[in-house]
């Protein structure tokens, strides 16, 4: 069964004729050619596919593309795309400085999950708080230490902005 759908991703509409069983993660990667969103486990556990639906982080592998019609989908590409003069989003900058990524496969999921917390100035600062906040994303490279440090760095910079 097929359906013609229009999915808005990072403000841009993508109209395609898709099989109804097409996962949103696959639509994003293959139909919209936005490969920043990664597919790790396809059953919701690893978090690499996390995107935002109307600003709320969700697993794109657990959504059907047809379910995304009428919603605003936001992927990791938006973070730098929306910034002037090629700078990185503060979260990306902090991950870069603290080596919060090695292969980078998990990173988009972390960033998409953390961005709303960053915007709301609600990133935890304690070690335990950060680890609980990022528990929804798995990383096989870093051992999480540098990711925690990156998040704490971003939080401190956000706090400095507030003052």
């Amino acid at each position, binding site marked *: 069964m097929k*359906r013609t759908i229009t999915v808005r991703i990072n403000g841009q509409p993508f109209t395609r004729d898709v099989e109804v069983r097409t996962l949103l993660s696959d639509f994003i990667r293959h139909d919209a050619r936005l490969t920043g969103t990664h597919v790790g486990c396809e059953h*919701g556990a690893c978090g690499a596919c996390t995107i935002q639906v109307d600003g709320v982080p969700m697993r794109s592998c657990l959504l059907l593309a047809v379910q995304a019609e009428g919603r605003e989908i936001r992927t990791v590409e938006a973070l730098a795309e929306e910034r002037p003069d090629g700078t990185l989003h503060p979260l990306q900058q902090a991950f870069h400085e603290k080596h919060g990524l090695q292969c980078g496969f998990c990173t988009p999921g972390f960033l998409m999950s953390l961005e709303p917390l960053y915007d709301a100035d609600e990133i935890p600062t304690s070690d335990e708080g950060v680890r609980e906040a990022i528990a929804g994303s798995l990383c096989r490279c870093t051992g999480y230490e540098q990711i925690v440090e990156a998040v704490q760095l971003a939080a401190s910079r956000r706090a400095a902005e507030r003052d």
Partner: protein
Amino acid sequence: MKPSRFAYHDPRTVPEALALLHELGDDAKVLAGGQSLMPMLNLRLARPEALIDINQIDALDEIALDEGTLRFGALIRHVMLERSPWTAQGWPIIPAALRHVAHPQIRNRGTVLGSVAHADPAAEMPVVLTALDARFEVRSVAGTREIVAADFFRSQMTTALEPTELLIACTVPALPPNTGCGFHEFARRHGDFALGGAAVVLTLAPDGTCADVRITLLGAGAVPVRAREAEAALRGHRLGDAAAEIARIAVGGIEPIAATVEEQRYRRRVVGVMCARSLESAQLAAEEAMQ
């Protein structure tokens, strides 16, 4: 992996959805949050011929507080109950348990009643709603019926829902005054399926003894287990330092799902410890409520 082929329906109203269920019955699966169903489809553990996606049905996206009773519909996501000032005030055990459900990204999309209909033996919401004596409103083209939580869960992944029925809403009665709740679970990592847990709702009498208690165990078997013998042992008495003893009675006959005898013994022990902790938390909360 990707899902196998299915026909896709996205009805806009409850009657449309019920008509589809009536027509398709066993061949169709209802898709709400999808946080349990989609993994099964992606792994091809489930191959329904049709999906009935209920996410467009506005009538199911309701939550209301009516004379102290909470009523919420099938599209209420876990995160909504987690953050609701109503649950924080009237049923704090709900947000306490929801913190343990998977991860925020899952809770943003998954629905509480989807978890109930899925009836995973390791799920928190079936246990909590059983402890709260919740009632489920179930509808088909034949009409509406209400099923109390105690009668709803039949076996693992099996509920009282007929293939042509839709779980529409849940009603949670108000807690009596001087009531405290406790919820504890143990999982190897935060967000993992629980190895064992317990939900306790405890009401104190004016003299400080236990007027009423409801103890529901998580991971004790195929369904949420009400520990009625333990409840009877506590009623009329002060909890004091008897939590471990009451918990021992609670887990006496339970048979947690396990691969080996040793694992079962371990899980029984975990459930017992969580039960004791939940009793103590509930007692403290009830004492605070009394002041």
